[in-house]
């Protein structure tokens, strides 16, 4: 089964993007890659893998670094639109 790529409008806030990822995970499987196509945020979801029981967390990087809680699993990182501005983020899931 093919993985699924979905696009999100660039004006989404950080919390809205998190909800967008959460909802798409429920539909298409866990997120494995994020980025942008210049017009909006894009994410790839892994098909055929069990839908996660916990939502992903999106966190902005500061100075190229992001603090991930101990035990959390990093899912993806990349440049996405947050409130219309390209930002470096990391996506992880708490244990």
């Amino acid at each position, binding site marked *: 089964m*093919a993985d*699924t*790529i979905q696009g999100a409008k660039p004006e989404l806030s950080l919390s809205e993007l998190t909800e967008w990822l*959460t*909802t798409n995970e429920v*539909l298409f499987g866990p997120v494995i890659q994020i*980025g942008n*196509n210049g017009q909006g945020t894009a994410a790839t979801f892994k098909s055929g893998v069990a839908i996660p029981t916990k939502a992903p967390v999106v966190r902005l990087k500061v100075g190229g670094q992001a603090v991930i809680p101990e035990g959390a699993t990093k899912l993806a990182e990349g440049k996405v639109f947050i409130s219309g501005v390209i930002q470096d983020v990391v996506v992880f899931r708490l244990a």
Partner: protein
Amino acid sequence: MQDLFGKVVWTGIHNRLRVLVIGLLLPLGACASFDGHPRPVVEPIVVKDEYHVAQALTAYYALPADGAQRTEYRDKIIGIYMDAAESRYQEFRRLLSREIKGSNFGLGTGALVLATAASVAAERAANILSAGAAALTGAKTGLAKEVYFEKTLPALIAGMEASRTRVRTNILLRMQKPAAEYSLPEAFMDLNSYETAASLDSAIEMVTADASRRVAVEQNAYDGVVLTLSGAPPIGTGDALRAAGTKIQELEAANDNVTLGKIAKALNIAPGATAPDTAGAIRAEMAVQIQRNSTVEQNKALGTKILDAAAQPGTGGQ
């Protein structure tokens, strides 16, 4: 080698020296990744005979043109080849790193050994030994030019990764189309691009053009990918639909198209011929309704409707 040894009378010491020099030079020819690209995937160990291009195309065209079988077979072949290419790529990267380190060490040591031996050998032998040392040093310089990317290897690998990501993304997008719109021959062309995207030659071109800019853009962007951009669902939607989404996935995995048909009927959409088709249609309809719904309560109701339909007794919507 002929210039070095061609006019020498081969005495015992000469023969030993010849063996030594040839032995030191041999590793150069044995380096698997000095070609600058991974080995092809179409080898018996990586891709079975039945999945070779000709056999796969024959099997593909033997399937009905108007059904989902060609799409499924195409996706299967793409999966096999991408997995094989990934395996080859990882092997290539490992060998690349190891061989660069190994060659530098071996050649440096060889040159030192021959130069030292020349200082204690008879005149003619010393000339040969010195020539051998010079040859090795020269070989190392030549090799260093051939693999001049040693110091920029991380950037080159990043360039290859960026190219592979871009090609892979395009393949994944095109896999969402049925075989009638994205056929197996087209897929093979894309898979070939995916393999060659791991070429050091193309990576060098990319890096020398503008390494940091290209790598940053390609790695962080779905460059050139055309997407329909959706808005944010109401907060709590994901959690509200998690049980329904999981149920659909379970039914799809169990190939239970009857129960999926009940859900499709409840959502007023036509079920597909297969469980994956119906599950895909349900997900697409859910995405539409989620975009239309303005409150999390509406999305909770959507989830409840799906779960209720799945629990409903009867023969389903087929």
